[in-house]
């Protein structure tokens, strides 16, 4: 597969690994945060951490949109299905997120809720067209990559005059999440979570461009390297970050030049700003209320806003006391620091969202990296 296989070449990986071993200075540690679900997945699936020098560590940030979705929002979707007789269309991963009352969307479906898995917002439109006598709500989650398709769906619904389609908008913004982490006490004051730099997300950057990250580099003096989502991209980006740290630089560099430029996808950005506007505040699971970090539907498209069409208010719900998802999302703890990781909380029975999505830190570690936790005799 062109543009895929070349970026997964094991020989090149070893050579970059050797380079890293030479350039990472032995007298200090390096900690880099990535917050792109695709990167978390790539690092685990291809075993990238194994190829890094011992003093270079990756911290998984809040890059998984399912993982940062608060329980209260899933509750809203469940209520729509069970109490308002709505057909709820949702992406696959969201279905298993544990919500209130021992429910999840999958469990609500087993109770009779009409909940359907879709692969895109356009599929939800098709469901609305095929079921004119029912109300259909698209549960829209995701960062800046998934937002433009939702915008397109709303615009099309308006063009077609669909009366039974609306969107429960939970789209969130990447730069705000980074700021929030950089402003957190653990990073700013206590220094308990040293973050020396960031790997910028792949897909999100295709849409928003490299420009939005310049703010972090300047304001917080942290280097950012935007990386593609193949394992070689990630390794190269880590090397570039190590170099910046060694040289005392804090710039935005772009490893993913084949798909990302400074401005991003302007056509996509234009559609998004046409349909959505900023929410003053939005609760992120694990991060609490984050200002100007999420989107809501503009008044001009109010008829497609499920929060306005239906009487479902948002009620914040606290996480299970033993669940460390919040700390894990902020990079303060590792999955293995959580008391219930792998015992009570498993992919079959996820207690928190980090275990639900394959991009979540806990799920990724459970599926791919557990062998490192336990000494195992190998052949």
């Amino acid at each position, binding site marked *: 597969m062109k543009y895929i296989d070349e970026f997964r070449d094991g020989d*090149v990986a070893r050579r970059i690994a050797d380079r890293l071993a030479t350039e990472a200075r032995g007298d200090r540690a390096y900690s880099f945060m990535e917050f792109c679900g695709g990167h978390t997945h790539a690092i685990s699936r291809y075993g990238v951490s194994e190829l890094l020098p011992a003093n270079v560590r990756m911290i998984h940030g809040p890059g998984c949109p399912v993982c940062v979705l608060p329980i209260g929002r899933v509750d809203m979707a469940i209520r729509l299905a069970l109490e308002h007789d709505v057909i709820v269309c949702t992406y696959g991963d969201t279905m298993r997120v544990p919500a209130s009352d021992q429910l999840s969307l999958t469990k609500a479906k087993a109770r009779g809720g009409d909940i359907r898995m879709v692969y895109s917002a356009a599929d939800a439109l098709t469901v609305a067209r095929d079921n004119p006598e029912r109300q259909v709500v698209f549960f829209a989650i995701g960062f800046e990559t998934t937002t433009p398709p939702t915008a397109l769906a709303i615009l099309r619904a308006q063009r077609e005059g669909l009366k039974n389609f609306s969107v429960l908008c939970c789209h969130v913004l990447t730069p705000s999440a980074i700021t929030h982490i950089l402003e957190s006490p653990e990073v700013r004051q206590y220094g308990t979570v040293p973050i020396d730099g960031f790997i910028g997300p792949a897909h999100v950057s295709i849409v928003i461009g490299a420009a939005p990250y310049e703010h972090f580099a300047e304001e917080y003096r942290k280097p950012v390297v935007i990386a*593609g989502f193949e394992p070689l991209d990630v390794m190269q980006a880590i090397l570039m970050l190590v170099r910046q740290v060694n040289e005392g630089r804090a710039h935005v560099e772009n490893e993913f*030049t*084949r798909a990302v430029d400074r401005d991003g996808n302007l056509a996509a950005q234009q559609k998004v700003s046409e349909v959505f506007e900023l929410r003053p505040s939005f609760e992120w699971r694990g991060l609490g209320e984050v200002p100007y970090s999420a989107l809501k539907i503009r008044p001009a498209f109010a008829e497609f806003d499920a929060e306005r069409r239906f009487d479902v208010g948002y009620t914040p719900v606290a996480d299970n006391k033993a669940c460390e998802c919040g700390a894990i999302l902020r990079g303060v703890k590792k999955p293995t620091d959580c008391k219930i990781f792998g015992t009570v909380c498993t992919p079959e029975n996820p207690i928190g969202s980090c275990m639900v999505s394959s991009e979540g830190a806990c799920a990724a570690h459970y599926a791919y990296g557990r062998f490192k936790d336990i000494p195992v005799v190998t052949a």
Partner: protein
Amino acid sequence: MVNLGGIRKEVSIELVPQAQVGDYVIVHVGHAIGMIDPDEAERTLALFGEMSAMAATESAA
């Protein structure tokens, strides 16, 4: 219609209206969200190689 290793699927190019037949695109949730610049791809691959070539010359020095 995109082709990946012989698999063909219809995706929307509303977000990448400038895409032409023969171009490579990055697809997410049924939509093309960006194009791949072949020159930059080559440059990136060369960069991987260069970085490791530098390792060879440095250790030789």
